[in-house]
């Protein structure tokens, strides 16, 4: 099994990116490429559904940080959902939960990202 696999699907205006596995200095380039491709395609509202993300190091956090200003300049955002306990601990320890909106699950995130959407 690869250390990291990434799938992307579009739900309305929201690009849902699902990283599965481990994001570290070895795999971060793939993660960065996936994020950058979304931004290049003009998909500025991005939800990172982390239900299958076992682990993220500072390399992965840096990839997210590197794009947050760009997406917000285009009235988009990067949302987070389904964080496993250890992944949440990393974001929270560094204060990133103040910078990003974190949701319990994808449905909650969608309801926030797409006003008027139910469930």
């Amino acid at each position: 099994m690869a250390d990291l696999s990434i799938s992307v699907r579009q739900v309305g205006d929201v690009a849902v990116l699902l990283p599965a596995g481990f994001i570290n200095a070895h795999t971060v380039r793939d993660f960065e490429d996936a994020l950058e491709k979304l931004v290049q395609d003009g998909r500025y509202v991005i939800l990172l559904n982390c239900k299958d993300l076992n682990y993220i190091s500072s390399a992965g956090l840096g990839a997210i940080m590197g794009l947050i200003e760009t997406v917000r300049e285009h009235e988009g955002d990067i949302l987070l959902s389904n964080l496993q306990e250890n992944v949440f601990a990393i974001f929270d320890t560094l204060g990133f939960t103040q910078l990003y909106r974190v949701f319990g699950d994808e449905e909650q995130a969608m309801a926030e990202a797409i006003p008027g959407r139910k469930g």
Partner: protein
Amino acid sequence: MDHAQFRLIIPSQTRYLNLVTGLAKRASLVAGLDDAAAAKVSIAVDEAVTNVILHAYGGEGEHSVELELRFTEQALEIHIWHSGLGIRGDQLVLPDPKEYIKHPRKGGLGLLLMSRFMDEVQFKADEVSGLNECCLIKKIS
């Protein structure tokens, strides 16, 4: 299991990070830490070894990184040795998370995670061997 220890030597390549962090997590559980603490040790070791590979060795993959795990009754110690560029503890400046959030940028978070997730982080240089060391200590509560 008093003062047990063992060593692992890996090439300075990021493809082995997952192997090392998996080992660190398992070692933490063996030492008596809970799942949450073991995950934090795992991240700290990832950051330390990544620093060695990317910064001490400048991304060159033909060097070695040596890890030693020491189990004592009080703590799990992880010693990481390398022959690349060393840093001293007094050279370290940890980023302020609040300032970081106001002015986001890439990099600079690894040392902060190490310091937050471990009880002690030490950087040393051994003048005899010429090796540099990063020592991570997690106390067993």
